[in-house]
């Protein structure tokens, strides 16, 4: 396979896996959490590179620590949580930059770890994203109902006898795993586009979760493919082009569904609306 061929496979696989998990991120109102997790993962990637250990192994271990930290933070009262996330977000990124700046070839590495270098992915990277894909599929098929229940009605979920901590941990670990395998393709910082945007686009068009999931997976894969093609054609960074394509599609969807609803109001058929604060607003992660 050529480098471009591998890049296309990587981007499509990652887009599909990201699309699948993004639905759960959005329903659970975790976009901002996810953003913080990507930034907090960044120094782990750098540390793994400096230590010379396997990138996935190194940042995986670090990522588990990030998840436990996020869970601990989310137990704190609501007001402090957003502030704490903001601090973790910038501090994590800064730590990564400091660690990197102590090395030679600083600028090149910084680019690779923050926005990715998809044309350099190897077969190992494709295997990694496939393995994480299987994990996410297993999670969503076996625990999908519980994830939905927990997101929709946290109190009812706990009252039914389910452990909130268990399902939260499973979801956060899956999110972290996707962030880590997204690093070679789109970098730690742009990973959030893969993990949030497909569901945000799907939410505009879909009425229910199965349809939303299908649209998000197709959108993620499609944007990955389009991003790599744009990148190869115009010789621009693939991480950037994937993210810009996804962002552009979101803007177009927003305008199109708004127009559709304006027309459909008379016809009676309406697509799902995005209410500001309903899908974008953060909720405290663990309610007691």
């Amino acid at each position, binding site marked *: 396979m050529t480098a471009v061929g591998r890049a296309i496979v990587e981007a499509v696989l990652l887009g599909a896996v990201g699309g699948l998990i993004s639905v759960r991120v959005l*329903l659970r109102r975790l976009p901002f959490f996810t953003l913080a997790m990507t930034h907090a993962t960044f120094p782990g990637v750098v540390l793994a590179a400096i230590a010379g250990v396997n990138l996935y192994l190194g940042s995986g271990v670090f990522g588990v620590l990030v998840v436990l930290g996020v869970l601990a933070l989310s137990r704190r009262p609501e007001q402090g949580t957003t502030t704490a996330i903001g601090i973790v977000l910038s501090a994590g990124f800064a730590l990564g930059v400091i660690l990197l700046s102590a090395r030679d070839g600083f600028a090149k590495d910084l680019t690779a770890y923050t926005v990715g270098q998809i044309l350099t992915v190897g077969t190992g990277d494709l295997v990694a994203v496939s393995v994480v894909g299987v994990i996410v599929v297993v999670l969503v098929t*076996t*625990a999908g*109902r*519980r994830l*939905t*229940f927990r*997101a*929709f*009605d946290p*109190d*009812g979920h*706990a*009252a*039914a*006898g389910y452990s909130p901590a268990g399902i939260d941990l499973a979801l956060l670990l899956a999110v972290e795993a996707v962030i880590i395998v997204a690093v070679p393709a789109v970098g730690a910082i742009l990973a959030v586009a893969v993990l949030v945007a497909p569901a945000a686009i799907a*939410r505009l068009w*879909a*009425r*229910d*979760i199965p349809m*939303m999931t299908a649209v998000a997976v197709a959108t993620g894969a499609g944007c990955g493919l389009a991003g790599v093609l744009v990148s190869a054609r115009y010789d621009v960074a693939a991480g950037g082009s994937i993210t810009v394509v996804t962002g552009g599609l979101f803007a177009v969807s927003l305008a199109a569904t708004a127009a559709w609803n304006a027309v459909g109001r008379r016809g009676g058929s309406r697509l*799902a*609306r*995005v*209410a500001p604060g*309903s*899908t974008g607003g953060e909720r405290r992660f663990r309610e*007691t």
Partner: protein
Amino acid sequence: MNTPTDPALELDEVTVSYGPAPALENIGGVVGPGEAVALIGPNGAGKSTLIKAILGLVPLVSGRITVLGRTPAQARREVAYVPQADTLDPEFPISVGQVVLMGRYRRIGPLRRPRAADRRAAGDALEQVGLADRARHRFGTLSGGQRQRVLLARAIAAEPGLLLLDEPFNGVDAVSEQALLNAVAVLKGQGTAVVVSTHDLALAHLACEEVCLLNRRQYGFGPTRLTLTPDRLRATYGGHALELRGDRVIVAHS
């Protein structure tokens, strides 16, 4: 084991606290199968806290709660909880039918798909609250009262021995209120015990054999007509200017 004559719920000197001061102190009373108790008290009195304690979601500092002859944690599968509908996100992309089916999740288990019996139970429950024709509608498109009925249907689908409702009548229209009351009456007829927190005294008279007057501590627990007296209500709502107009408690906050 629990036999039909055993109480469905026993509260024995129940004390709960979140911080240094107790949120509930020495609450005690008994509710039999097919009986309903109304929890009455001002905002912050500890009604939701008591419901969460019965669910085993907040630990007791002292005292004991027995649900259907077992501990709250052990009994949870036979207890159904109805949250306040307006605490749920109306934009969540989920259908009415799917919400009701959540009441069956514990029976279905994680790996199987819902069976015909589960779908039938969910359909019957929706029928009982008068919303059988809305199964395919998105939950958020229904009115507040209808959403409350859907959440009650979810609880009915779980076939509970004990039903807990947290202020189910707030902001609910008359049609939905009647539908809720009818459905609760059917459940009671089948032997389900009911705990319902409310500000509505008329409702307590109408639907509940017993009342529990609460404001951190207990101001009365017993048969509705004997317990729901103006004096006791004033004591319960003490500190607020209180007016008993007909069957409503009017609380004027200073």
